[in-house]
């Protein structure tokens, strides 16, 4: 009888062990997958580069003096440029520029077709050939298929580059990073204060009556609204509003309409976080202040809020986390076109929507998506850790836990 019970107990205990283990497996699998796929593509060029691919045709004279550098293997001294064999998006072999010296003439060249000023930098590549003229005035060709080593050797003897079709692959996320920053700042400026004020009113000042109860239940209902619905609201109402504010008549969303949508979306989060921050402040503080003859508003702003400040900071961090992670609402409220030049009245994608854009097409690009996912994950996790630390400190301060 007793052994039977011990066996049964052990089995049940074992089941809870297994169940708990599943969560760990899920987390490890997600982290492992994201890092294994994404870490290789997460380079400085990727973070700071343009997204739009470009191509140029340039011609230029070499420098009179040689630009010394011994760090790179396939390096052409006359032009201060180093090559590497690589492949482009379409997996074609290309010769890629991995280094351009500060003194290189390539930093400022004129596109011979558009007349546009171009600064050749790391990440540019060519797939066809370079037409060069050597010191004796003979024309020669450097073919991309000959590889980086031959290209650097031949270019080292060139007096002039006569014709060079250069491409820039794009795929960088600088524009999306800037858009995300815009959205975070605007949301903190628009939505966050409204949330704080609402929470302060409901928690400290509101009388107990039916009207307030109705307001409260309306706000509670917001918690259950899915983000896609906020997106629909953004598309139907906030895009026209933002167009009116910005005086533009461009079709579709803009960064402001996205920020307005997010401002609404974060309201329940901010209100809840602020209310729990206010909960932590001991009631004695309020009573003591009121007993000294200070009125409610002064008490709230001079006694309660300063003491709730760390909690309100947590609310701000949670807001930032939500904005960084949000995708569905923004797809509707701004759109999915990735932009390199960001302005409040223009379109753009946050990092999360950038992922959606590269995954939603005919050929989903998991590598790029996971590289961005690493950034998002890192930011969100750091923010959450700080929030946890703050609430731990607060508990210590007021409860002595």
């Amino acid at each position, binding site marked *: 009888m007793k052994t039977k019970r011990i066996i049964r107990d052990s089995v049940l205990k074992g089941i809870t062990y297994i169940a708990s283990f599943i969560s760990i497996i899920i987390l490890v699998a997600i982290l492992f997958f994201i890092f294994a796929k994404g870490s290789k593509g997460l380079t400085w060029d990727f973070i700071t580069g343009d997204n739009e691919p470009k191509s140029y045709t340039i011609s230029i004279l070499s420098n009179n003096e040689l630009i010394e550098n011994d760090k790179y293997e396939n390096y052409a001294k006359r032009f201060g440029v180093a090559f590497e064999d690589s492949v482009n998006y379409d997996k074609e072999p290309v010769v890629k520029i991995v280094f351009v010296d500060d003194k290189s003439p390539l930093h400022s060249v004129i596109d011979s077709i558009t007349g546009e000023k171009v600064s050749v930098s790391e990440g540019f590549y060519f797939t066809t050939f370079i037409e060069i003229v050597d010191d004796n005035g003979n024309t020669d060709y450097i073919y991309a298929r000959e590889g980086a080593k031959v290209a650097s050797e031949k270019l080292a003897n060139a007096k002039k580059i006569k014709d060079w079709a250069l491409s820039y692959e794009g795929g960088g996320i600088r524009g999306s990073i800037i858009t995300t920053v815009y959205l975070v700042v605007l949301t903190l400026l628009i939505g966050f204060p409204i949330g704080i004020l609402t929470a302060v009113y409901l928690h400290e000042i509101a009388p107990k009556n039916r009207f307030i109860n109705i307001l409260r239940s309306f706000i509670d209902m917001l918690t259950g609204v899915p983000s896609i619905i906020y997106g629909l609201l953004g598309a*139907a109402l906030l895009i026209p509003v933002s167009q009116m504010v910005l005086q533009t008549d461009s079709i579709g969303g803009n960064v402001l309409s996205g920020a307005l949508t997010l401002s609404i979306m974060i309201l329940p989060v901010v209100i809840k976080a602020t209310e729990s921050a206010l909960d932590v402040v001991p009631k004695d503080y309020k009573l003591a202040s009121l007993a000294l003859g200070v009125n409610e508003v002064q008490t709230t702003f001079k006694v309660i809020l300063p003491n709730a400040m760390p909690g309100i900071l947590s609310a701000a961090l949670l807001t930032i986390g939500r904005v960084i992670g949000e995708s569905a609402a923004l797809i509707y409220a701004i759109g999915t076109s990735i932009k390199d030049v960001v302005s409040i009245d223009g379109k753009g994608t946050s990092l999360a929507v950038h992922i959606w854009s590269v995954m939603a097409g005919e050929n989903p690009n998991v590598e790029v998506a996971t590289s961005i996912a690493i950034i998002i994950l890192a930011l969100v996790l750091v923010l959450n850790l700080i929030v946890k630390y703050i609430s731990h400190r607060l508990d210590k301060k007021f409860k002595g836990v």
Partner: protein
Amino acid sequence: MIRNRDNKNKNIIVNKTVKSFLLLATVLSASIILLIIWQITKNGLKPFLTFYDGRKINFFHFIVGTRYSTTNYQIGFIIINTLYVVLLAILVSVPISVLTALFIAKIANKHFSRILTTVIEVLAAIPSIVYGVFGAGYVTIIVKNLGNALGIVTAGGISVLSSVLVLTMMILPTITMLSITAFKSVPREVEEGSLALGASKIQTYFNVTLKAAVPGIFAGIILGVGRALGEATAVSMVAGNLSSGPSFSLFDPTRTLTSTILIGFKETEGLDYDIRFSIGMVLIAIILLVNFILNYFRKRISDKYEN
């Protein structure tokens, strides 16, 4: 003396102004839900009331039909598929969540319990787009391989099963966290009573604590169902684009209400745009209805357990 009175008057005015300003912010926050309902209904009813190139959508066909394309906007089967996927996700995640919560709250030592709590919190903090990438890049491939092993051809792993797995991962932390709270708030006396009667610790946890925590766990399930019904991005990346249905086979592609709203969204006007609001309207109605039903059951359950 006069100065003092002036100051007092000024104070009262400031006090009143600030208060009404705060009230304004509160009314603004509360009016959002009305704005949502108004805007979604206004735009969502449009396809049934106006003509698009000489055709109007019949609401009855829309709500019960079994075909979805640019010529037939019928979402009956999508509703069924959505509920089916969410139901499966709940069936998978609830036992795992409850057992995990029991382990964290009662069985594990302090150190291990803290680690696991952090794991759950991290899972809860991961944004849905990351789950989507994981789903599209990893889960679908596992499902595809599983299908191959069983001799079933899948659409690259885009399937009911993938959607269920991704949703399970996403609602697991929600239900677990609420279940932990439920287990921790079971009164000690209840457990001590059971232990004093000679039951072992494990027997007590499974027979007494678990039962006492059911109402709290149910609250977690309600939250999880809400999250699963409304989840858009991650599901859209693994669910597929089923054009007629419903389909119940685990390896077939599917289509949920949210994925239908999200996938293929390009234009900013016309029927294909407006119909998405109609689907949003139905989504809200279903979330409210499911919530209402579950809350009814929760009430009955907690009444039962409290008596």
